[in-house]
């Protein structure tokens, strides 16, 4: 029986639970007798703790414990590195010494009977420091770039330096050039749900109800931190209220919650404040990029030089794919990329939706736009003239590449033909109108994953994976894959995720969940059917576990990426400089679309994220002590409903037999990539002013 569930716009299977409040998030798992913990953060940006007056606070009502580096247990912190952790450096060892490495770093944790008592005690705790001025501004001349250790090998996943041909001399010889610096502000993920952990010990066993995009790694990391076998730790996270990457890593607060619970001998609940989420749980690093393009007069790219630098902490080298797309997006014989890190006195950055690619593509796609004006060639036409036949960086064919189809489809739906090429030539009444376009790309990753499927005697099926659903609709899409594979209606399939004792899954990021977990579920469903065929029906459940991963031979033969094209129209007020996105349309080639309703929702959300990056989002640090001054939802600007216009997402028909058995390439990240440069290019088209620093604000376009 084929049910054609894959490809149908099934409504979210967990929608009802979410809107009725039945869905339980980490902080909802209150435990009997639990105490409440509040983290006290350093009020200096660099220095040492010299004194902590714990005694008066310990006497405050309800206070159960005040834990500082002086009385905290020395934790084993056995070596543990997942691929989600920076390859070089060591995680923050929390409350293990008197050093302050960045503003807001936890220096104490207060535990009390009620949240209110804990908050008041935390506010009353007096701490003395010796302080130095931290270095927090990447543009500060004292900031010294370093070559990322993990990028030094030529076969590194994110090589620090790559080259083909001779890009510098080709650039020098090029008749037409663009050579500019692009800058992107630090951004914080700011999901709705705050980070939260409820920790409960039972002897040497620990249960963590904890917001996580990677429950099996949280289990492994906490096991390593406390020197316990991983099977002693259970991590549970059935629902996530948005994350955008901030819960990929296991941050210090999880250790603190577990430490506090052990210290006080009670379950402990710890929820971060919104403010703490601006410095304790990672951020999109500030980046500075030089992008230089050389071209012939008829628009053939002869050289690309891309030098990008991202900030990192002093104790870990956070790397992202800042320069990766540059090597294969266009056909050109000469490319040189360089990726450097700038260690600063800040917490370690981490992946934020579309990490690296979103930032790198901003520079590349703005530079290409600048080149199109210099050449007097339509920006889409310029891209078409440089469309490669293969991935020239690896000399491999693409498993599929629909970039120009995306441009054609989105251009038509958007009405690109109505655009007048001249900047500042289009108006709507008083307003300056501009249209911009950009390409987008993101790798089609696939990580090994496992799944368990169980056929029950009542004709229903259960499927379990230690995966996560931070909002894209994983519950729903995986139910579709299982239902289709098993030939069952979706109502008879129950998919569960978010427990570390389920078959392990990779982190819920990198747009690889559909490919990885989906393939594992498909394999488990096939395996359980085979098992059923072998066994007589005896009224007992039939179970099978299977894993799936990409065939290494196929992986070696093809370059695998998603591609897309994004179009944006802005209106700029010529008097007061307000910039409004009026509409946007994107088209994406992402292989098979498992659920068009979810896919569209993913794209709209990603585009709004890209809009935030282009026009609003920026965490501002006070250079005197590294504190974020706008760590507040009223001050850190994100698009609100009134800002978001009609957004269209289209999918080109794309059959990719190579990526995986499901033919899916992933969608979460690419939807953000490309939006920011499309908007920046539209702002230029509207105003004639090129702003190369994100976010673009009123003050940037006031003077032309």
């Amino acid at each position, binding site marked *: 029986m084929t049910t054609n569930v894959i490809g149908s716009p099934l409504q979210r299977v967990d929608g009802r639970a979410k809107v009725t409040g039945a869905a339980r998030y980490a902080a909802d798992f209150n435990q009997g007798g639990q105490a409440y913990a509040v983290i006290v953060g350093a*009020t200096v940006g660099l220095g040492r703790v010299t004194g902590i007056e714990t005694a008066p606070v310990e006497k405050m009502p309800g206070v159960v414990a005040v834990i500082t580096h002086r009385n905290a247990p020395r934790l084993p912190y056995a070596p543990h590195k997942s691929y989600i952790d920076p390859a070089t450096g060591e995680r923050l060892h929390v409350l293990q010494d008197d050093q302050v490495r960045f503003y807001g770093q936890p220096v104490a944790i207060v535990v009390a009977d009620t949240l*209110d008592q804990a*908050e*008041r005690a935390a*506010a009353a705790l007096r701490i003395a420091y010796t302080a130095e001025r931290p270095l927090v501004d990447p543009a500060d001349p004292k900031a010294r770039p370093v070559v990322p250790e993990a990028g030094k090998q030529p076969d590194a996943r994110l090589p620090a330096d790559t080259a083909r041909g001779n890009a510098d001399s080709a650039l020098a010889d090029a008749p037409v050039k663009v050579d500019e610096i692009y800058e992107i502000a630090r951004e914080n993920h700011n999901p709705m749900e705050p980070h939260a952990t409820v920790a409960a010990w039972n002897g040497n066993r620990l249960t963590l109800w904890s917001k996580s995009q990677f429950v099996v790694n949280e289990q492994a990391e906490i096991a390593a931190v406390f020197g316990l076998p991983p099977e002693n730790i259970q991590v549970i996270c059935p629902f996530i209220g948005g994350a955008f990457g901030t819960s990929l890593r296991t941050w210090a607060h999880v250790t603190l919650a577990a430490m506090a619970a052990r210290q006080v001998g009670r379950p402990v609940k710890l929820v971060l404040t919104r403010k703490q989420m601006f410095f304790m749980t990672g951020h999109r690093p500030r980046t500075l990029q030089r992008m230089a393009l050389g071209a012939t007069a008829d628009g053939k790219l002869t050289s690309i030089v891309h030098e990008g630098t991202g900030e990192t902490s002093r104790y870990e080298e956070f790397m992202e794919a800042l320069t990766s797309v540059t090597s294969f997006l266009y056909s050109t014989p000469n490319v040189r990329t360089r990726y450097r890190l700038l260690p600063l006195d800040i917490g370690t950055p981490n992946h934020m939706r579309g990490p690296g690619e979103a930032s790198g593509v901003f520079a590349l796609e703005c530079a290409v736009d600048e080149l199109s004006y210099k050449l007097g060639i339509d920006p889409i036409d310029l891209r078409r003239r440089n469309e490669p036949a293969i991935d020239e960086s690896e000399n491999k064919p693409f498993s599929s590449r629909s970039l120009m189809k995306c441009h054609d489809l989105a251009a038509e739906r958007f009405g690109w033909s109505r655009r007048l090429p001249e900047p500042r030539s289009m108006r709507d009444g008083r307003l300056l109108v501009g249209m911009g376009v950009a390409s987008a790309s993101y790798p089609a990753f696939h990580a090994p994953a496992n799944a368990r499927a169980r056929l029950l005697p009542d004709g229903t099926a259960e499927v379990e994976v230690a995966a996560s659903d931070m909002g894209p609709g994983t519950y729903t899409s995986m139910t579709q894959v299982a239902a289709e594979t098993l030939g069952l209606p979706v109502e008879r399939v129950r998919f569960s995720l978010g427990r570390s004792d389920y078959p392990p899954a990779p982190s819920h990021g990198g747009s690889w969940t559909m490919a990885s977990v989906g393939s594992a579920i498909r394999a488990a469903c096939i395996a359980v059917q085979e098992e059923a065929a072998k066994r007589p029906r005896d009224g007992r459940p039939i179970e099978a576990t299977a894993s799936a991963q990409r065939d290494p031979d196929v992986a070696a033969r093809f370059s695998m990426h998603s591609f897309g094209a994004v179009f944006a129209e802005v209106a700029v*007020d010529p*008097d*007061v*400089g*307000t*910039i*409004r996105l009026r509409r946007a349309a994107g088209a994406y080639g992402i292989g098979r679309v498992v659920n068009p309703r979810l896919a569209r929702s993913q794209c709209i959300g990603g585009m709004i994220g890209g809009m935030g990056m282009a*026009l*609003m989002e920026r965490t*501002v640090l*006070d250079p*005197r002590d590294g*504190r974020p*001054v*706008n760590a*507040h939802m*009223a*001050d850190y*600007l994100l*698009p*609100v*409903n*009134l*800002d978001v216009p009609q957004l269209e997402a289209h999918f080109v028909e794309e059959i990719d037999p190579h990526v995986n058995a499901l033919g899916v390439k992933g969608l979460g990240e690419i939807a953000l990539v490309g939006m920011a440069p499309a908007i920046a290019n539209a702002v230029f088209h509207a105003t004639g002013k090129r702003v190369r620093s994100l*976010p673009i*604000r*009123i*003050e940037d376009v*006031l*003077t032309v």
Partner: protein
Amino acid sequence: MLPFTLEKVTSVQAAIAAASSGRRFIAGGTTLIDLMREEVEQPAHLVDINALPLSEIRIEGSDLVIGALARMADVAAHAGVQRLQPLVAESLIEGASPQLRNMASIGGNLLQRVRCPYFRMHDAPCNKRTPNSGCAAIDGLNAGHAILGTSNHCVATHPSDVAVALVALDATMQVRGPRGERTFPVEELFRLPGDTPHLEHTLLPGELILAVRIPGGPDSRRARYLKVRDRASYEFALVSAAAALDVEDGVIRQARLAVGGVGTRPWRLRMVEKALIGKAPDRKIFETAARLALEGARPLSGNHYKLELLPRTIVRALEMTGEAA
């Protein structure tokens, strides 16, 4: 949050009596509770005034009278307000968010505290929060701060939108305290920071705002509010302007102009008004007059753009008075 008592009152008299003994009024609580959560405000006793009969909106002749407890959302949606004083409605709609406007009262709006980020940070000096502790903003990040009316002690802008409109319209406020009732221009409610930035308003201890009265005039219907900011809603003004023009036979008879986002209090610009009167309402005239707004302006390290944005906002708001809302 520190513990506090909460007492409900049902008469104006009881409210005033309670406040005279050091209690604080609470209306919508949208700003007071927020600051209490962060222990910036630390009242030990609150008097809930929401049951007082002060939420009426009435029309008396050409005047509009708005009770102190009328909610921002209700005032903005009121047909009489929209007809008689569209500027007031427009300035309210541009403020805060729908959720906040449903709770927030007009009286509370006028007394809201500043949005300077350091004001909320106990680990930063702030003369307004802790007198004589210093000002973190003057040498810090101050892109949102004021260029007019600042002192060496405080440079925070007054954040209210509707206050800008009320000051432009010569609205008055009716207050009652232990020593009886008085009426004075809304403009006089706000103090300059000087060397006492912790003192923000001129209400006497125990005084309760009863109502705001807005006189109608020939210019009321040619009055507009322009709020300039980086997103469309839920953001305080970078610069805003409330403008009203009475134009007869192609000549400006009367002009009203106040601006927000640039002053330490809602900033009336009488020099600019004077420069407009007797002239034709055209862009050149507006531009020349708007330059006068910068007199005495003192930009900080991060807000030079306001010198450019302020006159542009004024010009545009003046132009808008000739356009339908």
